[in-house]
Every structure is written in structure tokens, then in C-alpha cells.
């Protein structure tokens, strides 16, 4: 906290601070004396007077630095910024400074989005997001915000190389796989056989590098869903992993189940066998799930 009570007094001599009204007991008012509470008392007074001023803006900076989750202060800050027609590019710096210590704060991300939308300038955004993802490559807010930037400003060119770097770094990064799906399939008109094939090849390669990684398997399902292709074609690929990959075993169950539905009794037997070994040996914590699958497959089709 940068504001000492002394500073507050000199800057806000004309303002009568309003102490917190804590409502009826048991949440009754009690005296608490911290710099934070003093700043809040002045904040309440400024809000009551509807004061939109430079000093009010400074006060919100201080309170937010101290307590970035205080959504009411953020709301008021936005009003001040727009009323005073403040330099919004400078505001992006303020947000950036806060993001270092509070990368998962909801208010900060939404605030940035509002500011950037108003500025109609996305030039600093990917760099900002990359910095946050550099610290935590799975930050949910950063990824959602990135998707908004991609869509709102039609910025797609940097995405695949960026995702590629992240997946080289950590092929288990589910957020990066999700974003890949978002990017690759954002333009429905651009989906053709060669795109599908290259995504399948890419994903297979990543699976071969690191078995037991559910994210690319899920991605593969997403790719197939966008095409008219069938999971049957992946049988030999799944068999590359024999017994050391639960995901490939699960896919084989799907593949054989489909075949069993078309009257292939051998496939039915194979599917049941894999379900049993998953239930009893390889994925025992999900025994109930694999038994459910087995029962579904074993049940006489109606």
C-alpha cells in the first residue's frame, strides 16, 4: 500500500471518510484501523459524492493494488477513466503491472478487454498474453482472452506456430490442444481433406512421442468429428501402443464396439476383453466405467 494515512489526509482534506457500515450483527461494525480501511473510507466518500477525478483514479489504483478482487472499485475506476477521457494505453500498463502478481483475477482480464475494445488496438495484446502464459501455460483467463482477441481482431496468423512452441515445451498442455482446435477450425470454409489429414498426422506424431496423454487423443476425436472419416481407420495406429496406453485401449473399445454393432462377433469379443483388462488391471480406479462399457457391448442389440 503506497498511501499512508498522512497522504490521505493531505490529498483528501475536503472529504469526510465514511467508515464501513457492516450491516446488522453478527456482521456488526467494529473499529479496524489499517491503511486499507482508511483508503476504503475515502473511497466510499468519493463514490457518495460521485467524484470522478484524478485523485479518485489514484485512490482506485491503490485499493486495487492492495485488493484486486474488489470488483466495485474496478467498476468505479472504469467510470472515471471514461469520464475523464484518460489515456487508455497507459491503463494497459497498469493492468500489465497487476497481472504479474494476480494472473487469475477475473476483474483484471475483463477490464483489459473493455479497455482494448474501446481502444480498438490489439497491438500489445498477444505479447501481454504470451508473458502471462510464459509463467503459467494453462492460465484459463489468458486463453479465453486470447480467443477473444483472435476473433474480435481477426488475428490468426501467429497462432499455430505459437501453439507448436507450447506443445514442444509440454505436449500434455490441454489448453494448447484446445486452442489448436479453436484455431484450426475457426473458418469452416477452410476445412478440407488435406487439412484434416495433416492434423491427423500431426496428432499421431505427438501421441507416438508421449504415450498416456489424453489431450491429443481427445483432439483426434475432435478432428474426426469435423470430417466424414471414421474411427475405424485408426485401428492399426491404436495397436502400435499395445498395453502401455490406456487411451489407445479405450479407442480400440470404441472401434470394436462399432464393428460389433454391425454384427462382427469377433470384434464384440475383443471389445469385451479390453474392457475387462482396463477394469481389472490397467485403469482400476475407473472400474465401474469400463464395466458399464462392457455391459453395453455385451447386451444383445435390440
Amino acid at each position, binding site marked *: 500500500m503506497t498511501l499512508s494515512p498522512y497522504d490521505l489526509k493531505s490529498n483528501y482534506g475536503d472529504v469526510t471518510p465514511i467508515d464501513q457500515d457492516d*450491516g446488522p450483527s453478527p456482521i456488526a461494525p467494529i473499529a479496524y484501523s489499517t491503511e486499507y480501511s482508511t483508503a476504503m473510507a475515502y473511497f466510499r466518500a468519493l463514490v457518495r459524492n460521485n467524484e470522478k477525478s484524478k485523485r479518485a483514479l489514484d485512490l482506485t489504483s491503490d485499493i486495487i493494488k492492495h485488493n484486486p*478482487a474488489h470488483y466495485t472499485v*474496478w467498476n468505479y475506476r472504469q467510470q472515471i477513466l471514461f469520464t475523464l477521457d484518460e489515456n487508455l494505453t497507459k491503463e494497459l500498463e497498469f493492468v500489465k503491472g497487476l497481472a504479474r502478481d494476480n494472473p487469475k483475477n477475473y476483474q483484471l482480464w475483463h477490464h483489459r478487454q473493455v479497455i482494448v475494445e474501446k481502444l480498438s488496438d490489439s497491438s500489445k495484446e498477444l505479447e501481454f498474453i504470451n508473458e502471462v502464459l510464459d509463467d503459467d501455460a494453462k492460465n484459463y483467463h489468458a486463453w479465453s482472452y486470447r480467443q477473444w482477441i483472435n476473433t474480435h481482431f481477426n488475428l490468426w496468423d501467429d497462432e499455430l506456430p505459437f501453439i507448436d512452441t507450447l506443445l514442444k515445451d509440454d505436449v500434455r498442455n490441454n489448453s494448447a490442444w484446445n486452442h489448436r482446435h479453436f484455431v484450426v477450425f475457426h473458418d469452416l470454409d477452410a476445412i478440407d481433406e488435406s487439412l484434416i489429414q495433416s492434423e491427423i498426422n500431426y496428432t499421431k506424431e505427438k501421441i507416438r512421442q508421449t504415450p498416456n496423454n489424453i489431450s491429443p487423443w481427445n483432439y483426434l*476425436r475432435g478432428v474426426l468429428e469435423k470430417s466424414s472419416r471414421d474411427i475405424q481407420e485408426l485401428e492399426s495406429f491404436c495397436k502400435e501402443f499395445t498395453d502401455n496406453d490406456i487411451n489407445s485401449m479405450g479407442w480400440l473399445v470404441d472401434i470394436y464396439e462399432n464393428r460389433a454393432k454391425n454384427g462382427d462377433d469377433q470384434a464384440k469379443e475383443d471389445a469385451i476383453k479390453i474392457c475387462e483388462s482396463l477394469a481389472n488391471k490397467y485403469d482400476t480406479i475407473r472400474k465401474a466405467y469400463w464395466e458399464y462399457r462392457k455391459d453395453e457391448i455385451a447386451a444383445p442389440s435390440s
Partner: protein
Amino acid sequence: MSSSTTTSNVLLIDLHVKYIQSLDKKRDTLEYWITEHLRLAGVYWGLTALDLMNHVDALDRDDVIAYVKSCQWPNGGFSGHVNHDPHLLYTLYAVQILLIEDAIDAVDVDKIVEYVSDLQDKETGAFKGDEWGEIDTRFSYSALSCLSLLKRLDAIDVPKAVEFIMKCKNFDGGFGSTPGAESHAGQIFCCVGALAIVNSLHLVDGDLLGWWLCERQLKNGGLNGRPQKLEDVCYSWWVLSALSILGKLHWINKEKLFEFVLSAQDTESGGIADRPGDMADVFHTVFGVAGLSLLGYPGLKLVDPVYCLPKHVIQRRGLAERYKV
């Protein structure tokens, strides 16, 4: 204040009740004031946990009702605390608290309905959290849950709301916060719960999503919220409640999850933490208790997985089982 090293294999109800009662008495700590903006949420979390543990009276009913009333704004919305701005999340918490206390008539219900329905984006069907415009499927859930509890779903465009939620469905069967955003257990709870409320569960691929959800259970019994993330008591609840709504609760290894949640208890000061060894808080306490309730832990009242309220409250409201497919 440090969490204890000993663990217990039973739920320490008396200790947790004392812990929740003590939360309002920590006013000498800065943390108490820093979390002021979500005090109303804290009351909901604490009260729900207490009711599930058969100690709803541990907080004075009149005080609770008076406090909730003090957070309502003229526009009908509720804020996280006196003097803060109204927000949809806190509006739902307020309604939930009042229903636990059977005191919904203490506030202006028509105004709440007006506040909530005004937050719907007429074009997309999505809900904003407040007038500042953040969009998130958490708010879709908050709105549908709130209006359903008030029996006023007629006040919004339900098909549009469903349409937006379905835009947030992903290729892995899960749901994210906005269209395209990664599947996340908390968002899945919100979307599945919202769809259940408006009888639209047929839109969910139950087997695919059920697999994604039970795949969240790790070797130590705990559940994570996304692939490759750490296990966490609160995610355990979100995964569990979604599975329960889909009728696939048994896909989770119950004994191992019991063990995990119970080992996250603070055996000295009470409360439950996000995972063993961390500091307890009221948020993880309620979701730990609710998870145990859903799994049928003895001595707890049943929780409703859709509304995250004690089942008897939902029954009293005449809403029990109406969301079943």
C-alpha cells in the same frame, strides 16, 4: 493457523461447525477485510455446509436474514457485501441463503427477477455478470438457477439461454466459459446444471462427458478440474455433481474420494482445504461436505447436485426431481 499434520478418516463435524462460526470473528486480520466483497458468498458457503451437517442453527437466523436484506440494491440485485455493487453471483447466493432459511418473502422477489432477466443478452442468450458486461457460462447457470428457484423462468428467453450454453460445448464433450474456451469442471457443472434446470439434458453426450468427468480422478482419489492439473476438493464437487446429474456418480471410485476429502480436513482448527496439507477455507469446506453428502456419507443431509443446496430445501420449494430426464 497452520494446518495440522494428523489426518482423520471421519468427518469432524463439531470442529467444522466451530470453524464456520469462528469465521465472522476474525476481524483483526487483514484477510477478513480483503475478502469483504464476497462476504455474502461466505455466508452461503458456511450456511449450506452447516445445514448439511445438521447445524443450520449455528448461525442466528434473524441475523442472517437481516444481513442478506442489507445487501439488496434498489435495482433488485445483491452485492457481495454492504456498499459493494450488485452482481448476479451474489444475487444467486442471496436467494439460496434465504431459501435455506425459508425466508424468501423477506426481500422483493419481483425486483430480483427484473434484475436477473435484464442481464440476458437478447441476441446471444448469454448472461452478463453485472452491468459491466463480463460474459461467462457461470452467469448462465446463476441466472437459470436463481429464476428457477424463484419459479420465474418465464421472465427470460430460455431457448436462447440454452443455445448459448450449447455454443460452449467442446469436442471432448465438456463445456467452457465462452464459445471455444477449454473444458473445465467448474464450467461443466454450471452448464450441465443449467441444462438440467430447463430439462435439456438430452443435448449432452452423457457417455462422452461422463468419461471426461470420471477421467478427472487421480490415483490418490482426488479429482482435478482439467487434464494434467492438481487434484482439488472443490473440483471434486463440480465433477461429482455433474456426474450425479448425468446419473453416472458410480463411475467415481467412492472410497478413494472419501479418503482424499477427509484427509484435507484441518484436524486442529476445523475446515477443509483444497488438498491435504493446505490451509482450510470455507469455500473448500462446503464443497468437501457437499461431495461427501452426494456420495452418501453417513450422518449428513442429502445435497441437491443441481442447485448445490440441501435437498430438503429443494423439496420444500417443490422443485425436487423435476430436472430428471
